[in-house]
C-alpha cells in the first residue's frame, strides 16, 4: 500500500485570524499578532485559530479481488451407493417424506440390491427401491427423536445410512443433517466389521435465484430506445406485394417479425419483439421494454475464487479450466460394433480396415 507524506508550514504569513483590525485617525488597518500569542490566546490556552483547516487528498490503490468462477468440481453427494434425504412441513408435522438419493445407475447395475427403510418407531421395515424424486412417507404416532435407517445389501457387504429426525417437525432445525453411513463387508479380513463415517450435509444455505436477486430489477419495465439502421428489408416477401402489413415473417420455424403499419409518416414493424419506426428522412427509431437484470439473467452455481488473480498465490501453480470429456465421438466418425455390420461396405470400413477384404 502506497503512503504519501505532505508538508505544511503554518505561520502568520498564511493566516488571517492573527490580523487584528485597528482604527487611528480615521484610518483602518490591521496589526499582526505573534504566532505564540495566537496559538495559546484562547480559553484554557487553546488556539485562537478555530477555523484552521486543510484540504487533503486521499487515493486508493486497488487490486481486483479476482473473479468468481463456477466451481471446477462436480458437486454431488459423497457416496452414491446408499443415501437419502428427508423433508417435512409444519402443516403435517408428524409426517416424514424420505427420498432415496442413491445413484440410479448403481441401482440398475445391482438389480438385486434392494433398499429397505426402517422408520425407527418399531413399525417394521419397508422397501424403498424407487429413487428421488419419488418418495415414501410415514406418519409417526407420537413425538420423539427417531433414527431413520436405510439398509442396502449387495454382494460386497451391507451399507446402512442413519439419520435422526425429530417429530413433530417444528421448523428448519437440522439436528443432524449429515447422517451416518455404515458399511459391513461380507468377506475378507474385515468381514463383519462395521466401518462408518459421517455424510457431508448436501444442502448449504438457501440456494435459489429468488434469494440471490434483490432490487436489481424492476417490476414495471422501462423503455430502451435509440437510433439504428433500417431492418425493414429483412421482412420482405417474395411475390408482387413485397411488404404487407400484419403478415408474420417466419424464419427457422419461428415468428421473426411483422410489419405493423405503413403510412406516409412512418413504417412501423417488429422484429424479435423490438419495435422499429422507419421515417421518411431515413432515420430509424427502435423501442424495447426492459426490466433490468432479471432472474432470467442469473444462474445458480457454487462459486470459488481464482486466487492467482490476487497476486497472492505464493508458489508456482498451474490453473486450468480445460475439461476433457471422455467417450464422445465425433459426428463425422461413425463407429459400428461388429454386430451392427450388415453389409460389405460396413465390413470394409470396420475397425479402420480391420478385415482384409479380397475382391474377386
Amino acid at each position, binding site marked *: 500500500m502506497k503512503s504519501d507524506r505532505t508538508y505544511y508550514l*503554518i505561520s502568520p504569513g498564511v493566516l488571517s485570524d492573527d490580523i487584528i483590525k485597528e482604527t487611528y485617525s480615521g484610518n483602518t488597518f490591521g496589526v499582526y499578532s505573534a504566532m505564540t500569542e495566537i496559538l495559546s490566546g484562547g480559553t484554557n490556552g487553546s488556539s485562537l485559530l*478555530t477555523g*484552521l483547516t486543510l484540504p*487533503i487528498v486521499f*487515493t486508493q490503490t486497488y487490486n481486483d479481488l479476482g473473479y468468481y468462477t463456477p466451481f471446477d468440481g462436480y458437486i454431488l453427494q459423497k457416496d452414491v451407493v446408499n443415501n437419502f434425504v428427508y423433508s417435512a412441513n409444519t402443516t403435517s408435522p408428524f409426517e416424514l417424506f424420505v427420498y432415496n438419493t442413491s445413484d440410479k445407475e448403481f441401482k440398475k447395475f445391482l438389480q438385486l440390491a434392494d433398499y429397505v427403510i426402517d422408520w425407527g418407531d418399531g413399525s417394521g421395515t419397508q422397501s424403498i427401491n424407487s429413487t428421488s424424486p419419488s418418495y415414501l412417507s410415514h406418519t409417526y404416532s407420537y413425538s420423539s427423536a427417531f433414527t431413520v435407517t436405510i439398509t442396502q445389501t449387495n454382494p460386497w457387504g451391507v451399507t446402512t445410512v442413519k439419520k435422526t429426525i425429530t417429530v413433530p417437525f417444528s421448523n428448519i432445525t437440522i439436528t443432524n443433517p449429515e447422517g451416518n453411513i455404515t458399511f459391513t463387508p461380507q468377506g475378507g479380513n474385515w468381514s463383519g466389521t462395521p466401518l462408518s463415517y459421517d455424510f457431508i450435509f448436501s444442502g448449504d444455505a438457501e440456494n435459489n435465484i429468488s434469494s440471490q436477486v434483490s432490487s436489481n430489477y424492476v417490476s414495471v419495465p422501462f423503455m430502451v430506445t435509440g437510433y439504428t439502421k433500417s431492418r425493414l428489408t429483412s421482412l420482405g416477401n417474395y411475390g408482387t406485394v413485397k411488404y404487407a402489413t400484419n403478415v408474420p415473417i417466419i424464419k427457422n420455424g419461428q415468428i421473426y417479425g411483422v410489419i405493423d403499419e405503413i403510412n406516409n409518416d412512418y413504417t412501423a414493424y417488429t422484429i424479435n419483439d423490438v419495435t422499429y419506426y422507419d421515417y421518411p428522412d431515413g432515420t430509424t427509431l427502435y423501442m424495447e421494454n426492459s426490466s433490468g437484470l432479471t432472474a432470467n439473467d442469473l444462474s445458480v452455481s457454487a462459486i470459488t475464487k481464482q486466487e492467482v488473480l*490476487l497476486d*497472492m*498465490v505464493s*508458489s508456482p501453480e498451474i490453473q486450468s479450466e480445460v475439461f476433457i470429456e471422455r467417450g464422445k465421438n465425433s459426428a463425422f466418425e461413425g463407429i459400428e460394433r461388429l454386430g451392427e455390420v450388415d453389409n460389405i461396405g460396413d465390413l470394409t470400413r470396420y475397425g479402420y480396415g480391420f478385415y482384409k477384404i479380397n475382391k474377386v
Partner: protein
Amino acid sequence: MALGSYGITRPADMSPEDVEIIMHYTPSRDVTEDFVLKTLDAATILTPYFHNNNTGGNTNEILGGMYNLTLPSTEFNEKGIYTLYIRPAEIRTTITDCGVLSALPNVKGIIVDLNNVDPKFRNKFVAQGLVGFRVEYLNDDGTKIPNFYRIVTSSFYCEPVTTNLTNSSQKSIRYRYVENGSDLMFCTLSPSSAPSNKPNATPYIGQPDQDIIITNTFFNPITLDIEMAEHDIDTLAIALYGNQTKSMEDGIYTLYDPSNNIYKQYNLFEIRDEFNNLLFEVRQDRGDNIDFSKNFNSVIN
C-alpha cells in the same frame, strides 16, 4: 498479449468513520523523546467535499478524493511539528472459531462473533461487507505478528452445524450460511488453499480465541507534517520587501505587509557612554505595544 491497460489508483470516497487519525507532536525537530501521541476523532474533524453547481455532479454526490481536515484549536495550540498519521480504521476483535463450510469442506474461513465487535463498526459485518478488508494477527503476549496478513474474500452470516466424530470425544463443528439472524460471520480469507506443489502446506488463517485486527483498504495511509512556525517565506518577504517607516522623533521602526497592515514594530535607539561615545545601536521588538499612530496611511498623508 495485453489488449489495454488500466490504472490502479482511484480517488478514495470513504466515510470519515472509516478513518483513524493519529497525532504526533513534538516542539522541535530535535526533541524526540518528549512527544505527544494521541488519536483524534476523524468523524468530527474530517469532512468530505461534495459537488456543487460548478463541478458537474449533484450536490449530494461526494466529490471523491478531496477532504477537509480541521485542525482542532485545543490540540494545535503550540508552535512545533505536528505529524498526522491518517490510516484506515482498525477493528479489533477475536476469532471465535476457524472452520469449514459443511457443504464445501475445502472452503476454510474464520468465524467472528459480532458481539465481540465495537458497535460502531458492526455495520461492516453484513453479507459481503468485509470483502477486501485486511486481517492481521496478534500473538498471545499482545505483540503483532509482523509482515503477515490475509485478505477477506467473502463474508456471510453463518450458523454452526454440529457433528460427532466417530471414536472420539471431539466434535466436528462445521458452518452453513444463513441469510440473517445470526451473530456469527464466516469470512473466507486469501490465501487459504495449499499450493498444488505442496498440498499439505495449508496457509495459516488464524486460530480460535486469537486477537485480530480487521482493517479496511478503502484508501492509502497518508502522513501530514504540519509545522506551526513564527515565520515563513511570506513573513520574511515582508521584512525584506515590504513598506517600512522609521519615526525620527521617537525611533519607532515599523514594517508593513502588502496591505499595509502593521506586521512588526521596533524601537531604534543608541546606547552611549558618559563621553557620548556610541556603544550600541539597538533594535528592540515592541511586541504587543504597537503605536497605532505609525499606521502607514497616517504617516504618508
